């Protein structure tokens, strides 16, 4: 079992994949360690939100995901 990371929008381009599994448990520092370079910068951006199992985190640095959780990395939506 592990944590499923889902990259949305252009984050998927930066990651080179749409999804990736990381070992559980996973916290904010663990996530950053797993996404170096431009992808890491995009994840750190204050405009990128994080949701766990479909629920937005108010403070993404409080990320705490366990086995079987799905962590979505959400860049700004495109608007209209």
């Amino acid at each position: 079992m592990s944590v499923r990371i889902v990259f949305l929008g252009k984050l998927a381009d930066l990651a080179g994949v749409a999804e990736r599994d990381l070992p559980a448990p996973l916290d904010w520092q663990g996530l950053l360690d797993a996404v170096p370079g431009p992808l890491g910068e995009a994840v750190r951006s204050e405009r990128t939100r994080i949701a766990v199992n479909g629920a937005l985190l108010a403070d993404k640095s409080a990320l705490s995901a366990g086995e079987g959780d799905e962590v979505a990395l959400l860049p700004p939506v495109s608007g209209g």
Partner: protein
Amino acid sequence: MARDVRLLAEPFNPGQFVGPFTNAHPGLGGVCTFVGEVRGGEGQDAGVEALELLHYPPMTLPGMEALADEALARFDLMGILIIHRTGVMRVGEPIVLVSAAARHRRGAIDAVDFTMDHLKSDSWFWKRERRGGQWHWIEPREQDHADIARWG
């Protein structure tokens, strides 16, 4: 049928949804409908070959349903219909349809205006467009924030 919210992965004909939605609300005074299409042809839209809308299933449809509930609570509506495309679309294809049925026109028109502003700015969709065979992500626009601010 107060709330009908759908994500569609295939092209749709607005009339197929608006007719039955209207008929489902006997006694209504009016129905306001907005249909947005993939724009093409001029200025910044010249050369657009296709548009792709990506979504995130655990959040996109639930977010649209919450928006529909907010419109129902805020305006004096009999019903609301929201349909949004996902996937790859060509110029001229409908992307979004919002219909609101009400006893009085003001509520119907304002509900469509409100729902479109929030769908465009707040909903979990990421867009990219293809020009010259290359896909380009579409960034948020300042105008979207201004549109949302209208509703206080």
